[in-house]
């Protein structure tokens, strides 16, 4: 069964460094998402992406964040200059469609980002 994959499973970085989190969505899916979950808190929406552009983003997704689909398979989240409060589990998700009807989002296993 197709699944969303994410690499690495755990990333440790120093404050101020750039990180890139990688995701491979399900191959025939067209909509892509990033979420994060700070330890002990709720899952928070960051951004949705369709047709090579951001379709929706949250207040969390500021200028320090960017997303890219550099080729036909990868979907990346870049944090330019990490802060301690960026430490969280980051989930990628994809859906076949994203239109008016409901379209199930399939989540990856997450990347745990630790900023020291």
């Amino acid at each position: 069964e197709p699944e969303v994959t994410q690499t690495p499973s755990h990333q440790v970085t120093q404050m101020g460094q750039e990180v890139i989190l990688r995701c491979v969505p399900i191959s025939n899916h067209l909509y892509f998402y990033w979420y994060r979950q700070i330890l002990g808190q709720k899952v928070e929406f960051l951004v949705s992406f369709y047709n090579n552009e951001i379709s929706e983003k949250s207040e969390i997704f500021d200028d320090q964040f960017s997303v890219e689909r550099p080729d036909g398979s990868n979907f990346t989240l870049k944090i330019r200059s990490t802060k301690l409060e960026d430490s969280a589990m980051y989930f990628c998700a994809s859906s076949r469609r994203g239109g008016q009807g409901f379209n199930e989002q399939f989540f990856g296993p997450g990347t745990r980002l630790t900023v020291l």
Partner: protein
Amino acid sequence: DQQVKQNSPSLSVQEGRISILNCDYTNSMFDYFLWYKKYPAEGPTFLISISSIKDKNEDGRFTVFLNKSAKHLSLHIVPSQPGDSAVYFCAARLNTGGFKTIFGAGTRLFVKA
């Protein structure tokens, strides 16, 4: 941001009985409501959804009820099984041209054998 609230952090139920997980919301613009299940070290897994124009949706052992006037939804699991033990997230989709999904804090369900 408390648009989706799950007020019970945990729930314990005996195997074979009904589990009822509750969720309240504040935003009338949500167009779909969703339930996700999450095991440790895994991403959330979609369980069941309901459109804001419906009041019930059923899929096997899982039924979601929506009460729009009370801005309340619930997930019923009957019969509960030990494998159902997980964290259950209520979520709601906001259609603002793009789509944003807002999650509740989750309820940890323990199903005792």
